[in-house]
């Protein structure tokens, strides 16, 4: 059977359950899979661990999952609200109802890449001597100190892209790419929400993420 990863929107998250570790793309205002985030809220699995650049970005609907009390833990690089009132995340975090693991952004993305690339751990100079790496192994190479960071692997990746084809090949619009490639590689199930699905298979020059990494495609 010709490979065909297109699914109905209603089935995009089939099989996702409580306790899942969920990657959500988006950064700098671009690339938020907001339709899939809302579908995840409507589906309602609990005790999720979200791996998302920001827990509080204005343009991302990530906060809806948090406000709906589906989230046990957030691994992110930013968790500060924008309004005078504390955000959904901050309220729950201060009340001890949600766990926070704050990671420098380069280590965040590299840990996810490592997860998709079969690398269990690596060393980085970033964060050495700071409270974000407290308790992490420190090791000297040459004349510099490094900390060991471990891979992040997820159950589900929600990825926003611009164009897909039926084999899951993806094209991103400008800076929409951000975490899409690494998150798709590190998740057991990668679901892409795209503006449009091309009738033809995409030409190789345009493909920014090979379909091998994408399990389901939905046009929204």
């Amino acid at each position, binding site marked *: 059977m010709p490979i065909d990863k297109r699914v109905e929107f209603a089935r995009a998250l089939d099989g996702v359950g409580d306790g899942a570790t969920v990657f959500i793309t988006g950064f700098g205002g671009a690339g938020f899979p907001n339709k899939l985030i809302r579908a995840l809220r409507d589906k309602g699995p609990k005790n999720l661990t979200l791996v998302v650049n920001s827990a509080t970005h204005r343009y991302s609907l990530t906060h809806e999952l948090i406000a709906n009390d589906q989230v046990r833990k957030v691994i992110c690089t*930013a968790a500060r609200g924008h309004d005078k009132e504390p955000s959904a995340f901050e309220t729950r975090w201060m009340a001890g109802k949600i766990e926070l693991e704050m990671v420098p952004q380069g280590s965040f993305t590299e840990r996810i890449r490592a997860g998709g690339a079969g690398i269990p751990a690596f060393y980085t100079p970033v964060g050495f001597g700071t409270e974000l790496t407290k308790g992490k192994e420190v090791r000297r190479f040459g004349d510099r100190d490094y900390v060991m960071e471990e891979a992040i692997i997820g159950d589900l990746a929600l990825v926003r892209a611009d164009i897909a084809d039926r084999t899951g090949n993806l094209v991103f619009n400008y800076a929409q790419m951000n975490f899409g490639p690494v998150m798709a590689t590190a998740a057991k199930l990668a679901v892409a929400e795209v503006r449009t699905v091309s009738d033809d298979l995409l030409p190789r020059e345009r493909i*920014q993420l090979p379909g091998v990494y994408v399990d389901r495609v939905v046009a929204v």
Partner: protein
Amino acid sequence: MSALNRLQITWRAAQDITDGQVVNLGIGLPVHCSDYLRPEVDVTLQSENGVIGVGPLAEKDKADTDLVDAGSRRITLRPGASIVDSSWSFAMIRGGHIDVTILGAFEVAQNGDLANWDMRVPNRGPLVGGAMDLAACAREVRVIMEHVTRKGAPRLLERCALPLTAVKCVSRVYTDLAVVDVTPQGFVVREMVAIGREELQARTGAPLTFAPDCKPLTAPPIEVAD
């Protein structure tokens, strides 16, 4: 006294950017440095979200919501620009391919330690973004900040009191009062406004040395629209 305003500080920092450099300008005040580059200088501006070759801000009617920088500003691309994913973007930063980063800061210590990510604001979640990567790994880390806090406390210190962003990373600090280098011998003032050395030292939390050729710190008039 003729302290620089915020945009004049960015102007001064921009003057030190040299031809051909790859530069990352931090979110907030530092991004304004791109407005004041010397005309003969051709630099490549990198943004943490993967844009290599950031151009001017987009006009409203031409902006694409997906063409943004790390600060969510809608931008344009310079000719020859490219966009990479996050892992490439931070491999570029961590791998030492950024010649200069200019960052905002809360505190800088005399050994170059930088604190710029967590003010310990009560009831607010933390935000680190790419600050630690840039501070730890750019070839040169320069800082823009007010010389003292709103309450008048010094920001140039013997030791940072706030949580560190990276250790021993800052090479130069631009403030409203001075241009200060971080050297193995501590802070060395390269340029300063006309407030007198004793006054500058009084507003600084660590010993200052003054360069033999210490110059006046000046900038053209720039209006700050607040």
